[in-house]
C-alpha cells in the first residue's frame, strides 16, 4: 500500500489539508455571521439573551418569588443545584424589584418545595401556570410531573420550535416552570435562554428535577 511519503506528495497533502480547513472555516464564518445578524442569533447564556420584540414585559407577576420564598422557608439548600435556595430567594427579590423598574422580570430558580407550591397554585387555576419538561421526549414518555407538557430544549432551537407553545396558547407573560432531570442537567437552562430570546418573561427553573419530584412522592404520570 502506498504511503504519503512514498507517493512524494507530502507537500501536496499538507496543502490539501490546509485548503480543506480554510474553505470550511470561510464557509462557516459566513454562515455564522449571517445567523448572528438574523432574527435568532446563537445565544448561550441568559445574560446574553436579549428579549425579542414579541413579548410584553409590563406588569407581570413575579411567579418565581412565590416559590423561592417558600423554598427558603422550607429547605436549607440543595447541593448539586446550580443555584441554592438562598440565592434563588435573592434572585426572586431582585426579580420583584426589577419587575417594578421594567429592567428584568420573572426570572428565578426554585427548589422542590417552591416547585410544589407553584404546582398547587396551577391546580387552583387562579392563573395559567405552565409546567414544562425540558428533558428529551423519551424521558418524558417514561414519566413526568403530572400535567407537565413536554418541551425539549432541542425542539425550541428549531426554526418552528415555538409553534408548539403557540398552539398550546401559552402567553408571553404566563408563568412557565421548567424542569429537567435535576442535579447538573442543563436542559432547563438552555430552554430558558431560548424562551427569553423569544420574549417570554416569566420563567422559573425548578432546580430540583423530576428525580427529586418523584422521590418526594409528588404527583407524576407514572403508574397511570
Amino acid at each position, binding site marked *: 500500500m502506498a504511503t504519503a511519503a512514498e507517493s512524494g506528495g507530502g507537500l501536496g497533502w499538507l496543502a490539501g489539508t490546509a485548503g480543506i480547513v480554510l474553505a470550511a472555516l470561510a464557509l462557516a464564518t459566513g454562515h455564522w455571521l449571517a445567523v*448572528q445578524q438574523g432574527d435568532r442569533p446563537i445565544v448561550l447564556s441568559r445574560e446574553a439573551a436579549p428579549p425579542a420584540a414579541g413579548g410584553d414585559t409590563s406588569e407581570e407577576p413575579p411567579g418565581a418569588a412565590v416559590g423561592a420564598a417558600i423554598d427558603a422557608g422550607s429547605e436549607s439548600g440543595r447541593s448539586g443545584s446550580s443555584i441554592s435556595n438562598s440565592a434563588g430567594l435573592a434572585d426572586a427579590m431582585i426579580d420583584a424589584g426589577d419587575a417594578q423598574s421594567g429592567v428584568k422580570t420573572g426570572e428565578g430558580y426554585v427548589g422542590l418545595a417552591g416547585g410544589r407550591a407553584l404546582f398547587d397554585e396551577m391546580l387552583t387555576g387562579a392563573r395559567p401556570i405552565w409546567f414544562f419538561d425540558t428533558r428529551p421526549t423519551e424521558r418524558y414518555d417514561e414519566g413526568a410531573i403530572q400535567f407537565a407538557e413536554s418541551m425539549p430544549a432541542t425542539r425550541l432551537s428549531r426554526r418552528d420550535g415555538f409553534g408548539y407553545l403557540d398552539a398550546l396558547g401559552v402567553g408571553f407573560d404566563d408563568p412557565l416552570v421548567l424542569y429537567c432531570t435535576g442535579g447538573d442537567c442543563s436542559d432547563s437552562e438552555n430552554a430558558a435562554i431560548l424562551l427569553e430570546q423569544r420574549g417570554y418573561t416569566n420563567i422559573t427553573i425548578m432546580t430540583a428535577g423530576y428525580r427529586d419530584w418523584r422521590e418526594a412522592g409528588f404527583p407524576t404520570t407514572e403508574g397511570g
Partner: protein
Amino acid sequence: MHAPAIAGNSVLLLLRLVLGGLFVFAGSLKIADPQAFAFAIKGYDLLDPVGQGGLMAWLAFALPWTEVISGALLVVGARPRAAATVVAGLLAVFTGGYVSVLARGMSVECGCFGSSEFLCSGPIAACHLVRNGVMLAAAVLLAVGGGGYLAMDAKPAGEPAEDPEDDVM
C-alpha cells in the same frame, strides 16, 4: 493488479464511503440546528458561555462545516488523503472532549449526530470512545493508504505514485 492490491483498494473505497457519509450526515444535522450544537458544546464545560460565547457560537458552525466538506471530499474521492487527515483531526478533538468529560465525571450528551444517535446512546461513555477510536483508525488508514478505487488520487494500492503533485489542491 495483484489480489492483495484489489482487496486493499476495495477496503479503502468502502472505508472512504462509510466514513465520509457519516461525516456528511453528522455535519448536516448540526448545520441544520446550530443552536442545539452550540448547547452541546456548552455542555462540555470547557469554555465560559458568557465570556467566550462568541467563540462557542462560531465553533458551532466551524466544526460541522469542516465535517461536511471533508466528508464530502471523502465520498467523491477528491483529495482523499487530505480529507482523511482533517477527519482524523476532528475525531482527535472530539475524543479529547470525551476524555475530558469522563475524567471530570460529568454526564453530557455528545451531540455528535444532533439529536440522533449512532451506535451509542445516552451520555458520553466508553462506547463513544470505542466508536471514535474505530473511526479514527479508518481515517488514519485512508490518510496513509489513499482513497482506493474511484479516488481521484488514482494510485493503485501497492504501487508508488507517478506524480508527486497528484494530491495538490
